[in-house]
């Protein structure tokens, strides 16, 4: 792999950029691999990368039905944070966040991790209490967050209106090293690094069946033929149910549409990322200048990658209350992604009822920020059979009633 650098660009600039290699190769599948990962999204690629980097396992194929990074990795609002409440969540998201800090250098690919700071607004007393609790928990979890006053919120984000008639800003939970990254680059960077380690990324290759023998995986049938493997990792988000069914087990997963929109680009006016959970609105400004706005999820199964416009209306209306200036901006594009939600809204990183089949899914609305941590932990689980990062996210938690519930805001006040 030719290294990327300012020097390399300068050199290529003088020879019509003819010297750049393919970022990743386009091989035909071989007969046999030690590990097959199904799904070349961020999580699948990161898993393969850490299998190679941390465990020296490079006889790996990553099979992708469409194009790598073409699912939710390239269809989200790119927010990165780790100030989660529950210990297992905080652990995996903080692992991910800390890996993001050096990911560009690790991959020799600029993923544009931008720790510009992230504020979760508290707009009800209930949220104030919830976030103060999170701040306390984060302190013991080694996650760097702080509770900040409305005045500080305004300093960090001057376009905010503190005194909304309905949802005034009462403070916020601030993570200074939270931020955003370039979503496509994360997938591309991992893909390039995997390819450089000799792994085969096979695009346009759909898995049509999973072969098992005596409760153990043997291989997969694909649109590009039969491929054998010792271990199989299923990392296919919204299609997890379909793959699980091929392997003979079921998952507590629902697929729903989550919507987002961007405005036309404008000069920088907002440096931080702001999340307003009471009104289900998230906003940040991309490097191109677009205001990237995330909204809520539909409450029903849907595979169309488009949601209902009334959700966009509701998100936008609430944002106008908190950020009055957005009213004069224009919506450039709206879209939906299909997210996979579990029974407790936390992910599954787990062994399965079939030996040597592992599953990583259920990231719901929070998957992008977790990619490096998820890959790190899942690679460890696949390579060694154990991972402290993944342990709490096992499938059997639904049987034991050991949920990881981040939605503490579900409570009500008298």
């Amino acid at each position, binding site marked *: 792999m030719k290294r990327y650098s300012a020097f390399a*660009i300068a050199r290529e600039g003088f020879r019509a*950029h003819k010297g750049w290699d393919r970022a990743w190769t386009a091989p035909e599948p071989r007969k046999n691999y030690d590990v097959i990962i199904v799904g070349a999204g961020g999580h699948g690629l990161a898993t393969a990368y850490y299998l190679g980097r941390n465990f020296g396992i490079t006889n790996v194929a990553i099979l992708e039905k469409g194009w790598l990074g073409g699912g939710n990795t390239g269809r989200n609002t790119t927010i990165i944070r780790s100030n989660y409440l529950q210990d297992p969540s905080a652990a995996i998201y903080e692992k991910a966040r800390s890996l993001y800090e050096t990911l560009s250098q690790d991959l020799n690919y*600029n993923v544009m991790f931008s720790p510009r700071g992230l504020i979760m607004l508290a707009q009800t007393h209930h949220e104030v209490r919830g976030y103060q609790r999170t701040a*306390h928990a984060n302190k013991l979890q080694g996650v760097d967050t702080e509770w900040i006053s409305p005045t500080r919120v305004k300093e960090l984000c001057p376009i905010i209106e503190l005194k909304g008639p309905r949802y005034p800003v009462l403070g916020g939970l601030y993570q200074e090293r939270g931020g955003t990254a370039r979503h496509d680059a994360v997938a591309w960077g991992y893909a390039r690094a995997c390819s450089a380690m000799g792994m085969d990324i096979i695009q346009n290759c759909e898995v049509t069946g999973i072969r098992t023998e005596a409760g153990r995986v043997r291989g997969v049938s694909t649109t590009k033929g039969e491929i054998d493997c010792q271990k199989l990792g299923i990392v296919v988000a919204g299609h997890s149910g379909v793959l699980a069914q091929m392997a003979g087990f079921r998952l507590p997963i629902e697929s729903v549409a989550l919507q987002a929109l961007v405005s036309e680009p404008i000069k920088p006016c907002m440096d931080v990322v702001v999340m307003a959970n009471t009104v289900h609105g998230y906003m940040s400004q991309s490097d191109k200048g677009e205001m990237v706005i995330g909204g809520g999820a539909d409450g029903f199964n849907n595979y169309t990658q488009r949601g209902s416009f009334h959700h966009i209306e509701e998100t936008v209306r609430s944002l106008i209350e908190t950020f009055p200036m957005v009213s004069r901006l224009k919506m450039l594009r709206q879209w939906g992604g299909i997210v996979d939600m579990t029974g407790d809204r936390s992910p599954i990183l787990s062994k399965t009822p079939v030996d040597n089949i592992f599953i990583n899914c259920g990231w719901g609305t929070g998957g992008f920020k977790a990619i490096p941590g998820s890959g790190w932990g899942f690679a460890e689980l696949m390579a060694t059979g154990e991972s402290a990062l993944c342990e709490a996210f096992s499938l059997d938690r639904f049987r*034991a009633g050991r949920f990881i519930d981040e939605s503490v805001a579900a409570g009500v006040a008298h």
Partner: protein
Amino acid sequence: MSYRHNDSGRLIDRSQTLTFTFDGKTFTGHPGDTLASALLAGDRMLVGRSFKYHRPRGIVASGVEEPNALVNMGHGNRMEPNQRATTTELFDGLTAVSQNRWPTLDSDIGAMNAAIARFLPAGFYYKTFLWPRAFWKNVYEPFIRQSAGLGRAPTEADPDSYEHFHVHTDVLVVGGGVAGLAAAKAAAATGLKVLVLEQTHYWGGRTPVDGGKIDGMPAQEWIDATVAELEAMRNVTLRTRTMGAGVYDHGYALGYERLTDHAPDAEGPRHRLWRIRARQIVTATGAIERPLAFAGNDVPGVMLASAMRDYLVNWGVVPGQRIVVATNNDDGYRTAIVLKKAGLDVLRILDAREAGGGALMQEARDLGLRIDCGRGIGKVSGGKRVKKVQICVTTGTGGAMEALDCDAVAMAGGWSPVVHLWSHCGGKLVWDDAQAHFRPDPAKAPTGADGLPFVTTAGSASGPMALGSVLQDGAAAGTRAAKAAGGKGRAPKVPVAEDVEEAAMLPVWQMPARAEYRLKSKSWLDFQNDVKVSDVELAAREGFESVEHTKRYTTLGMATDQGKLSNINGLAVLAGALQKPIPQVGTTTFRPPYTPISIGAIGGSARGDIFQPVRMTPMHAWHDVHGADWEPVGQWRRPYAYPQQGEKVEEAVQREVTNTRDNVGLLDASTLGKILVRGPDAGRFLDMLYTNMMSTLKVGRCRYGLMCSENGFLIDDGVVARVGEDAWLCHTTTGGADRIHAHMEEWLQTEWWDWKVHVANLTEQYAQIAVVGPKARQLLESLGGMDLSAETLPFMAWADGELGGIGVRVYRISFSGELSFEIAVRAGQGLALWEKLVEAGKAFGVMPYGTEALHIMRAEKGFIMIGDETDGTVIPQDLGLDWAISKKKTDYLGKRAQERSHMTDPTRWKLVGLETEDGSVLPDGAYAVGRGKNANGQLVTQGRVTSSYHSPTLGRGIAMGLVLHGPDRMGEVLEFPGTDDKVYRAKIVNPVFFDPEGAKQNV
């Protein structure tokens, strides 16, 4: 120079002059001008800078597809970035400022980027800015952000208003060109309701520019007659300045009407969002001309051929005096002919086709124009304005055969149907080889709720570009849509037009075909985002083979025009680089809206005070007058406290607690849910719903109950009163009222449908007032009307009666540990009773109290609060509420779930009281540290604070919390690290801090 040429200009009124400014300089124009036409009339060719290289940019198009001419308009709180000059109608006093340049448009420092463009190919930023690590956030990124971003953001709240329209129609026709009008006419003839939306302020689209005769009359006459005819029909609604913005599932569509953008002083809303429900949608959205990719095709003065013709015919404006036309199809000749007829100097027509064109070529030749076949443009020179064109062989490498000095270039690359609205909801496309474009595949239309197609395309949006076919297709689409929408009757006569025979076009994706890198790296595909042919080829070379990859890697088609000019050209270049047929490379997804729409319009009129409805109790206004500090609780607002003159909110809370404990307090408890459950099986039903037994409750008595989800977690609590043999009234939390009602309905309808029970949510039918404190009974007795003695109305009993002449139901229940009566009264009499209590209470020192005093008093008594002690992860057993879980029942919702291993785990944290050693208040939400770290390096915890207050009654801090083995560890001291870096130490105690014997409430 560009200028107002002659007395043509069908859309402008030359009798009036309007004045406007651009970058501070004053210009003039006429009513009917767009900002773009007026700028061209004033020789303002350079209007903006590109996104990445800050290249000088001129106006290239005449409509919504314009990528370059974006300006900042207005000022102060009416400032608006990225206004497209080509669709901005001119008005007197308009102020526009160019964007993305510093310090001025003419000398922009950012243009240095263009000088080093060879080092800034597609995706260069992924390959560099890697070191030093901290520089990305602090140096590189701020620089990139500052140089990107186009217009300046407004900073203040928007003073304009917006509104929504809700419309139902049988047929929606999007587009008021001749195809749309023909479709509307055909559909309207069946008597169905037809709504026609046109994005500009005039009807007929581009047809009057191109000319031709319809039904024997000049196109404009036919248009006027047809519009008049449609206007006269009662079943037809016509709307100009309204764009079809998006098509959604089940025949939902959005229209975006711009009401006052062209007349800012007019009254009324600025934009209106039409929320349309249509049985059938006809998209007569026209077609957009494609640019040609040759070196220097972005120099100001290079324009789409059709746009050049629009500017001349519509506004009497020309971009130059010596013009070269480059084309790969016959339509380009129309521009040359129009220019020539207007007396302009058309230096040369370069036709990429060896064999040239058909009748139009002949007409041009007859006009004396010089035509070079098999020739194209090798390069356009000029910085801020076209100066010279080098002519080359189309199939060659770009060697110049001849150079022409000129000041404008018209490029005609063929037409692509506008397929956006067709595609928004799943309509598929098919590649048309003859015209080299994607057009809608009628066999794969978007389908609606009934599984049948609900969108049909009309006119050039379907693919055909000649007037006669456009009319025919339009009329057929109208008839088809009307039929599908249930319309009957004969279709009217199809309008006819004579079409000129046209020769086949020749797809030209790079001009010349074998151009060298130095030319390809100057051949623009996406003008705004600076994506060139060389960038797409680089992406393909680097393995970005999917069109989605290439789009994202190069940013092709991701600018504010969303690739209206660049998508097909980019796709074709990618296909060429991959040596694949274009249809195999596919298209990217079209997302709404068609062109950007204001976020204000999406929000509509619900903003500020009417943003969301506020639910009010009957006493709401009284609270407001008496200084309530409001707390939003769901859609309700409840008084948090009633601070008096000069009193802080916290002080008010402490006073309210003390007064209630010493004298008597009033709480507006109307927001609590009140659900009546009635029927022969009501007792059985409630036994399933609550953890404890409700069927055994005696009429006249009350019982506190807990409700769990089927997953075992505590979801609500409240007092249940048996109000009749077969009737129970269930009180829920404020937030629980609707949720618990729905929960009950769901179980009754889906699972226990044969049980004879019905439920009614009476929350808003009754006001409820808690009269609380040692003097509560005295106060009520002073109103007179019923016996409230302990003997007649003991604790946890209720009685109907009268107080002060008002019919009431009195519940003797307590959430504060005080002698307490909750009085329910018909909502209409709530305020009257409240005021009587306030008046009569003066003698007893009555004061109202808010939610925070309520919280403190319940905490002093160790009562749990849903949402504080519970968070969706807590089961009743965690809270020491085993006494409220029936041991006799074999089943209740949540019981089976609570038997799972994790739920019965003895290490679950349990409820205790917590007391700091020094009497200070424990930080709310703090965690107690245990020993060591877990496998993920996190400090081990052994408990947390769930509620924490300063108790005025006890004069110190009190808290409740969940602690590992808590109830077995009384007296132990735990450490709670605060976020302020202090460590708080607190002792585990009984959670009932005040009056554990219940002496005060049981009097």
